[in-house]
Protein backbone atom coordinates (compact mmCIF):
# COMPACT_ATOMS: atom_id res chain seq x y z
CA UNK A 1 0.00 0.00 0.00
CA UNK A 2 1.31 3.41 -0.84
CA UNK A 3 2.04 5.86 1.92
CA UNK A 4 -0.25 8.42 0.43
CA UNK A 5 -3.84 8.19 1.56
CA UNK A 6 -6.12 6.94 -1.16
CA UNK A 7 -7.95 9.67 -2.92
CA UNK A 8 -11.68 9.30 -3.18
CA UNK A 9 -12.93 9.32 -6.71
CA UNK A 10 -16.04 11.33 -7.36
CA UNK A 11 -18.88 9.20 -8.66
CA UNK A 12 -20.57 10.77 -11.62
CA UNK A 13 -23.48 8.95 -13.17
CA UNK A 14 -22.63 8.29 -16.79
CA UNK A 15 -25.99 7.19 -18.07
CA UNK A 16 -29.58 7.86 -17.21
CA UNK A 17 -31.28 11.21 -17.34
CA UNK A 18 -30.85 14.01 -14.87
CA UNK A 19 -33.70 16.43 -14.50
CA UNK A 20 -33.34 19.80 -13.00
CA UNK A 21 -36.41 21.90 -12.99
CA UNK A 22 -36.91 25.21 -11.29
CA UNK A 23 -40.44 26.49 -11.20
CA UNK A 24 -40.49 30.08 -10.04
CA UNK A 25 -43.26 30.65 -7.53
CA UNK A 26 -44.59 33.70 -5.76
CA UNK A 27 -42.36 35.10 -3.02
CA UNK A 28 -43.44 35.72 0.52
CA UNK A 29 -42.20 38.61 2.56
CA UNK A 30 -39.73 37.48 5.18
CA UNK A 31 -40.40 37.10 8.89
CA UNK A 32 -39.59 40.27 10.67
CA UNK A 33 -37.63 40.51 13.89
CA UNK A 34 -39.06 43.34 15.91
CA UNK A 35 -36.62 46.07 16.92
CA UNK A 36 -36.34 46.58 20.66
CA UNK A 37 -37.09 50.01 21.99
CA UNK A 38 -34.38 52.16 23.47
CA UNK A 39 -34.64 53.37 27.03
CA UNK A 40 -35.02 56.96 25.89
CA UNK A 41 -37.87 56.06 23.61
CA UNK A 42 -39.67 54.17 26.35
CA UNK A 43 -39.18 57.05 28.76
CA UNK A 44 -40.54 59.49 26.19
CA UNK A 45 -43.55 57.29 25.65
CA UNK A 46 -44.28 56.91 29.36
CA UNK A 47 -43.85 60.65 29.90
CA UNK A 48 -46.25 61.37 27.09
CA UNK A 49 -48.76 58.82 28.35
CA UNK A 50 -48.57 60.25 31.88
CA UNK A 51 -49.05 63.78 30.58
CA UNK A 52 -52.03 62.73 28.50
CA UNK A 53 -53.55 60.90 31.44
CA UNK A 54 -53.08 63.92 33.69
CA UNK A 55 -54.78 66.19 31.16
CA UNK A 56 -57.58 63.71 30.64
CA UNK A 57 -58.11 63.35 34.37
CA UNK A 58 -58.24 67.10 34.86
CA UNK A 59 -60.66 67.33 31.97
CA UNK A 60 -63.04 64.69 33.33
CA UNK A 61 -62.89 66.24 36.79
CA UNK A 62 -63.79 69.64 35.36
CA UNK A 63 -66.62 68.07 33.44
CA UNK A 64 -67.85 66.24 36.52
CA UNK A 65 -67.82 69.48 38.45
CA UNK A 66 -69.69 71.25 35.68
CA UNK A 67 -72.19 68.38 35.67
CA UNK A 68 -72.62 68.62 39.43
CA UNK A 69 -73.22 72.36 39.20
CA UNK A 70 -75.76 71.80 36.46
CA UNK A 71 -77.47 69.11 38.50
CA UNK A 72 -77.61 71.41 41.50
CA UNK A 73 -79.07 74.17 39.39
CA UNK A 74 -81.73 71.82 38.03
CA UNK A 75 -82.65 70.71 41.52
CA UNK A 76 -82.91 74.28 42.67
CA UNK A 77 -85.11 75.11 39.73
CA UNK A 78 -87.29 72.07 40.51
CA UNK A 79 -87.59 73.11 44.15
CA UNK A 80 -88.53 76.66 43.14
CA UNK A 81 -91.17 75.33 40.76
CA UNK A 82 -92.58 73.12 43.47
CA UNK A 83 -92.62 76.00 45.94
CA UNK A 84 -94.40 78.23 43.48
Amino acid at each position, binding site marked *: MSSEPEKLKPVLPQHGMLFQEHV*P*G*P*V*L*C*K*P*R*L*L*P*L*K*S*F*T*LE*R*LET*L*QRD*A*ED*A*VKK*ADTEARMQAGAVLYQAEEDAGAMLEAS
Partner: protein
Amino acid sequence: MDPLFQALSLFRRRKYEKCIEKCTEILDKNSYDEAAWLLKMQALTEQVYVDDIENDEDGMAEGLLDDSAIASVARPGTSLRVATAGGGSGGLQQAMRPSTQSGRPVTGFVRPGTQGSGAGSLEQALKTPRTASNARPVTSSSGRLVRLGTASMLSSPDGPFINLSRLNFSKYAPKPQMSRALFEYILYHENDVRTALQLAAMATEAHQFQDWWWKLQLARCYYKLGLFRDCEQQLRSAMKQQECLESYLLLGKVYTKLDQPLAAIDNYNQGLTKFPNDRCLLTGLARIQEGLGNLEKAAECYKDVLRYDAMNVEALASIATQYFYNDQPELALKLYRRLLQLGLASAELYTNLALCCFYAQQYDMCLTCFDRAITVAKKEELADVWYNLGHVALAVGDLSLSYQAFRLALSYNNDHAEAYNNLGVLELRRNNLEMARSFFQAASTLSPSMFEPHYNVAIMAERMGDLQSAYQSVNRAQQFFPNHSDSKDMLNALKVHFSEI
Protein backbone atom coordinates in the same frame (compact mmCIF):
# COMPACT_ATOMS: atom_id res chain seq x y z
CA MET B 1 -37.52 68.09 61.00
CA ASP B 2 -36.36 70.94 58.88
CA PRO B 3 -38.67 70.95 55.83
CA LEU B 4 -35.82 71.87 53.48
CA PHE B 5 -33.77 68.92 54.68
CA GLN B 6 -36.79 66.69 54.17
CA ALA B 7 -37.27 68.04 50.65
CA LEU B 8 -33.59 67.43 49.87
CA SER B 9 -33.87 63.87 51.09
CA LEU B 10 -36.97 63.32 48.95
CA PHE B 11 -35.10 64.72 45.95
CA ARG B 12 -32.19 62.38 46.53
CA ARG B 13 -34.59 59.44 46.73
CA ARG B 14 -36.12 60.57 43.44
CA LYS B 15 -39.54 61.21 44.95
CA TYR B 16 -39.95 64.34 42.88
CA GLU B 17 -43.71 64.82 43.34
CA LYS B 18 -43.43 64.89 47.11
CA CYS B 19 -40.29 67.00 46.95
CA ILE B 20 -42.11 69.58 44.83
CA GLU B 21 -44.99 69.64 47.30
CA LYS B 22 -42.61 70.22 50.20
CA CYS B 23 -40.83 73.01 48.35
CA THR B 24 -44.14 74.64 47.50
CA GLU B 25 -45.03 74.61 51.18
CA ILE B 26 -41.74 76.30 52.07
CA LEU B 27 -42.17 78.84 49.30
CA ASP B 28 -45.71 79.61 50.45
CA LYS B 29 -44.32 80.59 53.81
CA ASN B 30 -41.36 82.51 52.46
CA SER B 31 -41.41 83.19 48.76
CA TYR B 32 -37.82 84.53 48.78
CA ASP B 33 -36.28 81.24 49.93
CA GLU B 34 -33.73 80.69 47.17
CA ALA B 35 -32.74 77.20 48.31
CA ALA B 36 -36.28 75.90 48.10
CA TRP B 37 -36.80 77.67 44.79
CA LEU B 38 -33.68 76.06 43.37
CA LEU B 39 -34.64 72.63 44.64
CA LYS B 40 -38.14 72.85 43.24
CA MET B 41 -36.71 73.91 39.90
CA GLN B 42 -34.37 70.92 39.85
CA ALA B 43 -37.10 68.50 40.87
CA LEU B 44 -39.37 69.79 38.11
CA THR B 45 -36.53 69.39 35.61
CA GLU B 46 -35.70 65.86 36.74
CA GLN B 47 -39.32 64.83 36.35
CA VAL B 48 -39.35 65.40 32.62
CA TYR B 49 -35.65 65.07 31.84
CA VAL B 50 -34.84 63.02 28.78
CA ASP B 51 -31.27 62.54 27.66
CA ASP B 52 -31.13 64.76 24.61
CA ILE B 53 -28.02 63.17 23.16
CA GLU B 54 -30.17 60.10 22.61
CA ASN B 55 -33.30 61.95 21.78
CA ASP B 56 -33.42 63.57 18.38
CA GLU B 57 -36.69 63.15 16.72
CA ASP B 58 -36.66 64.15 13.12
CA GLY B 59 -39.74 66.01 12.14
CA MET B 60 -41.32 65.78 8.74
CA ALA B 61 -40.27 69.30 7.84
CA GLU B 62 -36.65 68.60 8.82
CA GLY B 63 -36.61 65.54 6.65
CA LEU B 64 -37.94 67.27 3.57
CA LEU B 65 -37.21 70.96 3.67
CA ASP B 66 -33.79 70.41 5.11
CA ASP B 67 -31.07 72.23 3.21
CA SER B 68 -28.27 71.73 5.70
CA ALA B 69 -26.91 68.75 3.80
CA ILE B 70 -23.88 69.86 1.87
CA ALA B 71 -24.08 67.69 -1.21
CA SER B 72 -27.48 67.32 -2.79
CA VAL B 73 -26.30 64.40 -4.91
CA ALA B 74 -23.78 62.69 -2.70
CA ARG B 75 -21.30 60.10 -3.91
CA PRO B 76 -22.12 56.53 -2.90
CA GLY B 77 -21.05 55.69 0.63
CA THR B 78 -20.90 59.30 1.78
CA SER B 79 -24.50 59.97 2.61
CA LEU B 80 -26.96 58.73 5.17
CA ARG B 81 -29.95 59.86 3.17
CA VAL B 82 -29.96 57.26 0.43
CA ALA B 83 -32.08 54.26 1.25
CA THR B 84 -29.72 51.34 1.25
CA ALA B 85 -31.94 48.29 1.37
CA GLY B 86 -29.86 46.64 -1.31
CA GLY B 87 -26.78 47.08 0.79
CA GLY B 88 -25.54 49.71 -1.64
CA SER B 89 -23.11 47.21 -3.08
CA GLY B 90 -25.92 45.24 -4.68
CA GLY B 91 -25.93 42.32 -2.31
CA LEU B 92 -28.54 39.64 -1.92
CA GLN B 93 -29.62 41.13 1.34
CA GLN B 94 -33.12 41.96 0.29
CA ALA B 95 -33.97 38.34 -0.23
CA MET B 96 -33.13 37.68 3.41
CA ARG B 97 -33.73 40.80 5.37
CA PRO B 98 -36.99 42.77 5.28
CA SER B 99 -36.85 46.52 5.03
CA THR B 100 -38.70 49.32 6.73
CA GLN B 101 -41.30 51.40 5.01
CA SER B 102 -38.68 53.88 3.91
CA GLY B 103 -36.62 51.14 2.27
CA ARG B 104 -33.87 50.63 4.84
CA PRO B 105 -32.98 47.22 6.18
CA VAL B 106 -34.64 46.57 9.53
CA THR B 107 -32.43 47.12 12.52
CA GLY B 108 -32.42 45.36 15.84
CA PHE B 109 -33.02 48.47 17.84
CA VAL B 110 -35.20 51.51 17.51
CA ARG B 111 -34.34 54.95 18.86
CA PRO B 112 -36.25 58.20 18.72
CA GLY B 113 -34.39 59.28 15.58
CA THR B 114 -34.80 56.07 13.62
CA GLN B 115 -38.54 55.79 13.76
CA GLY B 116 -39.48 57.58 10.62
CA SER B 117 -36.22 58.60 9.06
CA GLY B 118 -35.31 58.63 5.44
CA ALA B 119 -38.50 59.63 3.70
CA GLY B 120 -37.31 60.39 0.22
CA SER B 121 -40.27 62.11 -1.37
CA LEU B 122 -42.99 64.40 -0.19
CA GLU B 123 -45.59 61.79 -0.95
CA GLN B 124 -43.84 59.19 1.15
CA ALA B 125 -43.32 61.58 4.03
CA LEU B 126 -46.93 62.61 4.05
CA LYS B 127 -48.05 59.04 3.93
CA THR B 128 -45.82 57.72 6.68
CA PRO B 129 -47.09 59.67 9.69
CA ARG B 130 -50.68 58.73 9.08
CA THR B 131 -50.21 55.33 10.59
CA ALA B 132 -50.80 55.06 14.27
CA SER B 133 -47.65 53.03 14.77
CA ASN B 134 -45.14 55.64 13.69
CA ALA B 135 -46.79 58.99 14.09
CA ARG B 136 -44.30 61.71 13.40
CA PRO B 137 -44.51 65.36 14.35
CA VAL B 138 -44.46 67.96 11.62
CA THR B 139 -41.33 69.55 12.96
CA SER B 140 -39.16 68.52 15.83
CA SER B 141 -39.52 71.89 17.48
CA SER B 142 -43.27 71.37 17.68
CA GLY B 143 -42.79 67.73 18.47
CA ARG B 144 -43.29 65.46 21.38
CA LEU B 145 -41.16 67.49 23.76
CA VAL B 146 -43.17 70.66 23.42
CA ARG B 147 -46.37 68.73 23.88
CA LEU B 148 -44.87 67.30 27.04
CA GLY B 149 -44.00 70.77 28.26
CA THR B 150 -47.46 72.19 27.72
CA ALA B 151 -49.11 69.16 29.25
CA SER B 152 -47.05 69.48 32.40
CA MET B 153 -48.10 73.12 32.62
CA LEU B 154 -51.75 72.25 32.19
CA SER B 155 -51.68 69.84 35.06
CA SER B 156 -50.40 72.42 37.53
CA PRO B 157 -53.46 74.29 38.75
CA ASP B 158 -52.03 77.76 39.33
CA GLY B 159 -50.08 78.30 36.16
CA PRO B 160 -46.37 77.84 35.53
CA PHE B 161 -43.92 77.83 38.41
CA ILE B 162 -41.71 80.55 37.01
CA ASN B 163 -42.95 83.31 34.78
CA LEU B 164 -40.03 83.44 32.37
CA SER B 165 -40.99 86.69 30.71
CA ARG B 166 -40.78 88.53 34.03
CA LEU B 167 -37.44 87.07 35.07
CA ASN B 168 -34.40 89.34 35.10
CA PHE B 169 -31.73 87.13 33.53
CA SER B 170 -28.84 89.52 34.06
CA LYS B 171 -29.37 89.09 37.80
CA TYR B 172 -29.08 85.31 37.64
CA ALA B 173 -26.46 84.88 34.91
CA PRO B 174 -23.35 85.55 37.05
CA LYS B 175 -24.47 83.17 39.85
CA PRO B 176 -23.05 79.80 38.81
CA GLN B 177 -25.32 77.44 40.77
CA MET B 178 -28.49 79.36 40.21
CA SER B 179 -27.99 80.02 36.54
CA ARG B 180 -27.24 76.40 35.66
CA ALA B 181 -30.32 75.02 37.35
CA LEU B 182 -32.40 77.79 35.82
CA PHE B 183 -31.00 77.04 32.40
CA GLU B 184 -31.84 73.35 32.66
CA TYR B 185 -35.31 74.18 33.91
CA ILE B 186 -35.95 76.46 30.93
CA LEU B 187 -34.54 74.00 28.41
CA TYR B 188 -35.98 70.73 29.65
CA HIS B 189 -39.12 71.66 31.53
CA GLU B 190 -40.36 74.66 29.61
CA ASN B 191 -38.78 73.65 26.30
CA ASP B 192 -38.19 77.30 25.54
CA VAL B 193 -34.96 77.08 23.56
CA ARG B 194 -34.75 80.76 22.65
CA THR B 195 -34.98 81.94 26.24
CA ALA B 196 -32.50 79.28 27.30
CA LEU B 197 -30.13 80.48 24.60
CA GLN B 198 -30.49 84.05 25.85
CA LEU B 199 -29.58 82.99 29.37
CA ALA B 200 -26.67 80.87 28.15
CA ALA B 201 -25.28 83.74 26.10
CA MET B 202 -25.47 86.10 29.09
CA ALA B 203 -23.84 83.56 31.37
CA THR B 204 -21.00 82.90 28.94
CA GLU B 205 -20.36 86.58 28.80
CA ALA B 206 -20.52 86.86 32.58
CA HIS B 207 -17.85 84.15 32.83
CA GLN B 208 -15.58 85.99 30.35
CA PHE B 209 -16.03 83.23 27.73
CA GLN B 210 -13.95 80.91 29.89
CA ASP B 211 -16.54 78.39 31.01
CA TRP B 212 -16.73 75.31 28.77
CA TRP B 213 -19.98 74.14 30.34
CA TRP B 214 -21.83 77.20 29.11
CA LYS B 215 -20.33 76.84 25.66
CA LEU B 216 -21.61 73.28 25.55
CA GLN B 217 -25.06 74.49 26.52
CA LEU B 218 -24.92 77.21 23.86
CA ALA B 219 -24.09 74.49 21.36
CA ARG B 220 -27.02 72.44 22.61
CA CYS B 221 -29.39 75.35 22.07
CA TYR B 222 -28.00 76.01 18.60
CA TYR B 223 -28.46 72.34 17.77
CA LYS B 224 -32.07 72.45 18.84
CA LEU B 225 -32.65 75.58 16.78
CA GLY B 226 -31.09 73.92 13.74
CA LEU B 227 -28.07 76.23 13.54
CA PHE B 228 -25.56 73.45 13.06
CA ARG B 229 -22.53 75.48 11.99
CA ASP B 230 -22.81 77.74 15.06
CA CYS B 231 -23.20 74.66 17.16
CA GLU B 232 -20.02 73.16 15.71
CA GLN B 233 -18.10 76.36 16.41
CA GLN B 234 -19.19 76.44 20.06
CA LEU B 235 -18.32 72.78 20.50
CA ARG B 236 -14.84 73.23 19.06
CA SER B 237 -14.29 76.16 21.37
CA ALA B 238 -15.52 74.15 24.36
CA MET B 239 -13.26 71.26 23.40
CA LYS B 240 -10.23 73.52 23.47
CA GLN B 241 -10.85 74.30 27.12
CA GLN B 242 -11.99 70.91 28.29
CA GLU B 243 -12.05 67.54 26.59
CA CYS B 244 -15.50 66.30 27.33
CA LEU B 245 -17.30 63.22 26.11
CA GLU B 246 -20.54 65.06 25.62
CA SER B 247 -19.04 67.48 23.14
CA TYR B 248 -17.77 64.62 20.98
CA LEU B 249 -21.19 62.99 21.04
CA LEU B 250 -22.93 66.23 20.18
CA LEU B 251 -20.47 66.96 17.39
CA GLY B 252 -21.15 63.51 15.96
CA LYS B 253 -24.83 64.34 15.93
CA VAL B 254 -24.16 67.66 14.20
CA TYR B 255 -22.27 65.88 11.41
CA THR B 256 -25.07 63.36 11.09
CA LYS B 257 -27.52 66.21 10.64
CA LEU B 258 -25.26 67.80 8.05
CA ASP B 259 -25.21 64.41 6.31
CA GLN B 260 -21.45 64.02 6.62
CA PRO B 261 -21.08 60.50 7.97
CA LEU B 262 -17.36 60.33 7.23
CA ALA B 263 -16.69 63.46 9.25
CA ALA B 264 -18.78 61.96 12.04
CA ILE B 265 -16.70 58.78 11.95
CA ASP B 266 -13.52 60.87 12.10
CA ASN B 267 -14.88 62.76 15.06
CA TYR B 268 -15.79 59.58 16.94
CA ASN B 269 -12.37 58.10 16.25
CA GLN B 270 -10.76 61.27 17.53
CA GLY B 271 -12.91 61.02 20.62
CA LEU B 272 -11.80 57.42 21.07
CA THR B 273 -8.16 58.51 21.23
CA LYS B 274 -9.05 60.79 24.15
CA PHE B 275 -11.51 58.45 25.81
CA PRO B 276 -10.30 54.99 24.82
CA ASN B 277 -12.95 52.28 24.45
CA ASP B 278 -15.77 54.50 25.49
CA ARG B 279 -19.10 52.77 25.05
CA CYS B 280 -21.05 55.83 23.87
CA LEU B 281 -18.49 56.72 21.20
CA LEU B 282 -18.32 53.13 19.96
CA THR B 283 -22.11 52.99 19.79
CA GLY B 284 -22.12 56.23 17.81
CA LEU B 285 -19.65 54.72 15.38
CA ALA B 286 -21.78 51.61 15.00
CA ARG B 287 -24.89 53.67 14.33
CA ILE B 288 -23.19 55.62 11.58
CA GLN B 289 -22.00 52.40 9.92
CA GLU B 290 -25.51 51.03 10.16
CA GLY B 291 -26.88 54.18 8.58
CA LEU B 292 -24.40 53.83 5.73
CA GLY B 293 -25.57 50.28 5.16
CA ASN B 294 -22.30 48.64 6.24
CA LEU B 295 -24.04 46.14 8.45
CA GLU B 296 -21.00 43.92 8.85
CA LYS B 297 -18.88 46.79 10.09
CA ALA B 298 -21.69 47.95 12.34
CA ALA B 299 -21.84 44.49 13.90
CA GLU B 300 -18.11 44.61 14.54
CA CYS B 301 -18.45 47.95 16.30
CA TYR B 302 -21.30 46.59 18.37
CA LYS B 303 -19.12 43.64 19.32
CA ASP B 304 -16.52 46.13 20.52
CA VAL B 305 -19.18 47.76 22.64
CA LEU B 306 -20.10 44.40 24.15
CA ARG B 307 -16.49 43.74 25.05
CA TYR B 308 -16.60 46.67 27.46
CA ASP B 309 -20.25 46.61 28.42
CA ALA B 310 -21.73 43.15 28.32
CA MET B 311 -25.22 44.37 29.18
CA ASN B 312 -25.67 46.84 26.36
CA VAL B 313 -29.15 46.20 25.01
CA GLU B 314 -28.62 48.04 21.75
CA ALA B 315 -25.48 46.08 20.89
CA LEU B 316 -26.99 42.74 21.86
CA ALA B 317 -30.14 43.32 19.85
CA SER B 318 -28.30 44.60 16.79
CA ILE B 319 -25.88 41.69 16.69
CA ALA B 320 -28.72 39.25 17.22
CA THR B 321 -30.60 40.70 14.26
CA GLN B 322 -27.49 40.49 12.13
CA TYR B 323 -27.03 36.80 13.04
CA PHE B 324 -30.66 35.97 12.42
CA TYR B 325 -30.68 37.38 8.92
CA ASN B 326 -27.33 35.78 8.17
CA ASP B 327 -28.92 32.39 8.71
CA GLN B 328 -27.60 31.74 12.21
CA PRO B 329 -30.75 31.77 14.33
CA GLU B 330 -29.11 29.70 17.09
CA LEU B 331 -26.66 32.49 17.86
CA ALA B 332 -29.42 35.06 17.73
CA LEU B 333 -31.41 32.90 20.12
CA LYS B 334 -28.52 32.89 22.56
CA LEU B 335 -28.29 36.68 22.51
CA TYR B 336 -32.02 37.19 22.89
CA ARG B 337 -32.05 34.76 25.80
CA ARG B 338 -29.36 36.85 27.40
CA LEU B 339 -31.58 39.90 26.98
CA LEU B 340 -34.42 38.04 28.64
CA GLN B 341 -32.11 37.22 31.52
CA LEU B 342 -31.35 40.90 31.86
CA GLY B 343 -35.02 41.41 32.67
CA LEU B 344 -36.27 42.81 29.43
CA ALA B 345 -39.61 41.05 29.04
CA SER B 346 -41.34 42.89 26.24
CA ALA B 347 -43.59 41.68 23.47
CA GLU B 348 -40.89 42.40 20.90
CA LEU B 349 -38.36 40.25 22.70
CA TYR B 350 -40.76 37.33 23.08
CA THR B 351 -41.65 37.49 19.40
CA ASN B 352 -37.99 37.51 18.43
CA LEU B 353 -37.32 34.59 20.77
CA ALA B 354 -40.21 32.69 19.21
CA LEU B 355 -38.92 33.28 15.69
CA CYS B 356 -35.38 32.29 16.65
CA CYS B 357 -36.65 29.15 18.40
CA PHE B 358 -38.64 28.19 15.34
CA TYR B 359 -35.82 28.66 12.87
CA ALA B 360 -33.31 27.01 15.22
CA GLN B 361 -35.68 24.02 15.32
CA GLN B 362 -36.54 24.28 19.00
CA TYR B 363 -40.21 23.91 18.34
CA ASP B 364 -41.27 23.29 21.93
CA MET B 365 -40.59 26.86 23.00
CA CYS B 366 -41.84 28.62 19.90
CA LEU B 367 -45.58 28.72 20.48
CA THR B 368 -45.17 29.37 24.21
CA CYS B 369 -43.14 32.45 23.38
CA PHE B 370 -45.78 33.65 20.93
CA ASP B 371 -48.39 33.11 23.63
CA ARG B 372 -46.42 35.28 26.01
CA ALA B 373 -45.89 37.91 23.33
CA ILE B 374 -49.59 38.13 22.60
CA THR B 375 -50.47 38.51 26.28
CA VAL B 376 -47.83 41.19 26.86
CA ALA B 377 -48.22 43.12 23.61
CA LYS B 378 -49.86 46.47 23.29
CA LYS B 379 -52.26 47.05 20.45
CA GLU B 380 -49.74 48.55 18.07
CA GLU B 381 -47.30 45.70 18.58
CA LEU B 382 -49.86 42.94 18.05
CA ALA B 383 -49.87 43.41 14.28
CA ASP B 384 -46.25 42.34 13.97
CA VAL B 385 -46.65 39.48 16.44
CA TRP B 386 -49.51 38.02 14.41
CA TYR B 387 -47.64 38.59 11.18
CA ASN B 388 -44.72 36.51 12.44
CA LEU B 389 -47.05 33.86 13.82
CA GLY B 390 -48.54 33.64 10.35
CA HIS B 391 -45.10 32.73 9.04
CA VAL B 392 -44.69 29.93 11.54
CA ALA B 393 -48.14 28.58 10.67
CA LEU B 394 -47.23 28.73 7.02
CA ALA B 395 -44.03 26.79 7.60
CA VAL B 396 -45.93 24.15 9.56
CA GLY B 397 -48.42 23.90 6.73
CA ASP B 398 -51.46 25.22 8.53
CA LEU B 399 -52.65 27.51 5.78
CA SER B 400 -55.92 28.51 7.36
CA LEU B 401 -54.20 29.56 10.60
CA SER B 402 -51.67 31.58 8.69
CA TYR B 403 -54.44 33.21 6.65
CA GLN B 404 -56.19 34.19 9.86
CA ALA B 405 -52.95 35.41 11.42
CA PHE B 406 -52.20 37.71 8.48
CA ARG B 407 -55.78 38.94 8.57
CA LEU B 408 -55.42 39.70 12.27
CA ALA B 409 -52.19 41.54 11.59
CA LEU B 410 -54.11 43.71 9.14
CA SER B 411 -56.92 44.30 11.60
CA TYR B 412 -54.44 45.73 14.10
CA ASN B 413 -52.49 47.72 11.54
CA ASN B 414 -54.09 48.11 8.17
CA ASP B 415 -50.91 49.53 6.68
CA HIS B 416 -48.99 46.31 7.07
CA ALA B 417 -47.65 45.91 3.54
CA GLU B 418 -45.94 42.57 4.16
CA ALA B 419 -49.11 41.01 5.49
CA TYR B 420 -50.93 42.20 2.35
CA ASN B 421 -48.31 40.59 0.14
CA ASN B 422 -48.42 37.29 1.99
CA LEU B 423 -52.21 37.24 1.91
CA GLY B 424 -51.94 37.81 -1.82
CA VAL B 425 -49.70 34.75 -2.16
CA LEU B 426 -52.17 32.67 -0.18
CA GLU B 427 -55.04 33.88 -2.35
CA LEU B 428 -53.00 33.03 -5.41
CA ARG B 429 -52.71 29.47 -4.13
CA ARG B 430 -56.47 29.34 -3.74
CA ASN B 431 -56.79 30.63 -7.31
CA ASN B 432 -58.63 33.78 -6.25
CA LEU B 433 -56.80 35.85 -8.80
CA GLU B 434 -58.68 39.10 -8.42
CA MET B 435 -58.29 39.07 -4.64
CA ALA B 436 -54.62 38.28 -4.98
CA ARG B 437 -54.12 41.12 -7.42
CA SER B 438 -55.77 43.64 -5.15
CA PHE B 439 -53.68 42.47 -2.18
CA PHE B 440 -50.48 42.87 -4.18
CA GLN B 441 -51.61 46.27 -5.34
CA ALA B 442 -52.24 47.34 -1.75
CA ALA B 443 -48.84 46.06 -0.69
CA SER B 444 -46.98 47.88 -3.43
CA THR B 445 -48.71 51.21 -2.80
CA LEU B 446 -48.12 50.99 0.94
CA SER B 447 -44.47 50.15 0.69
CA PRO B 448 -43.12 51.14 -2.72
CA SER B 449 -39.59 49.89 -2.08
CA MET B 450 -40.62 46.26 -1.70
CA PHE B 451 -39.90 44.05 -4.69
CA GLU B 452 -42.08 41.08 -3.68
CA PRO B 453 -45.52 42.36 -4.73
CA HIS B 454 -44.22 43.46 -8.14
CA TYR B 455 -42.62 40.10 -8.77
CA ASN B 456 -45.76 38.28 -7.63
CA VAL B 457 -47.92 40.34 -9.97
CA ALA B 458 -45.50 39.47 -12.75
CA ILE B 459 -45.79 35.75 -12.02
CA MET B 460 -49.56 35.97 -11.96
CA ALA B 461 -49.68 37.89 -15.23
CA GLU B 462 -47.29 35.46 -16.89
CA ARG B 463 -49.41 32.49 -15.88
CA MET B 464 -52.47 34.18 -17.33
CA GLY B 465 -50.63 34.91 -20.54
CA ASP B 466 -50.57 38.67 -20.12
CA LEU B 467 -46.94 39.00 -21.06
CA GLN B 468 -46.93 42.75 -21.49
CA SER B 469 -47.92 43.49 -17.89
CA ALA B 470 -45.68 40.69 -16.67
CA TYR B 471 -42.79 42.46 -18.38
CA GLN B 472 -43.69 45.78 -16.81
CA SER B 473 -44.04 44.32 -13.32
CA VAL B 474 -40.88 42.29 -13.45
CA ASN B 475 -39.03 45.37 -14.61
CA ARG B 476 -40.28 47.20 -11.56
CA ALA B 477 -39.20 44.33 -9.31
CA GLN B 478 -35.74 44.45 -10.90
CA GLN B 479 -35.54 48.14 -10.20
CA PHE B 480 -35.90 47.56 -6.46
CA PHE B 481 -33.83 44.40 -6.22
CA PRO B 482 -31.45 44.11 -9.18
CA ASN B 483 -29.85 40.87 -8.00
CA HIS B 484 -33.01 38.79 -7.66
CA SER B 485 -32.22 35.79 -9.85
CA ASP B 486 -35.79 34.63 -10.45
CA SER B 487 -36.87 37.96 -11.82
CA LYS B 488 -33.72 38.10 -13.94
CA ASP B 489 -34.62 34.71 -15.41
CA MET B 490 -38.15 35.79 -16.08
CA LEU B 491 -37.01 38.99 -17.73
CA ASN B 492 -34.66 37.09 -20.00
CA ALA B 493 -37.34 34.56 -20.92
CA LEU B 494 -39.75 37.36 -21.73
CA LYS B 495 -37.15 39.16 -23.82
CA VAL B 496 -36.52 36.00 -25.82
CA HIS B 497 -40.22 35.56 -26.26
CA PHE B 498 -40.76 39.13 -27.45
CA SER B 499 -37.87 38.93 -29.89
CA GLU B 500 -39.36 35.81 -31.44
CA ILE B 501 -42.66 37.52 -32.18
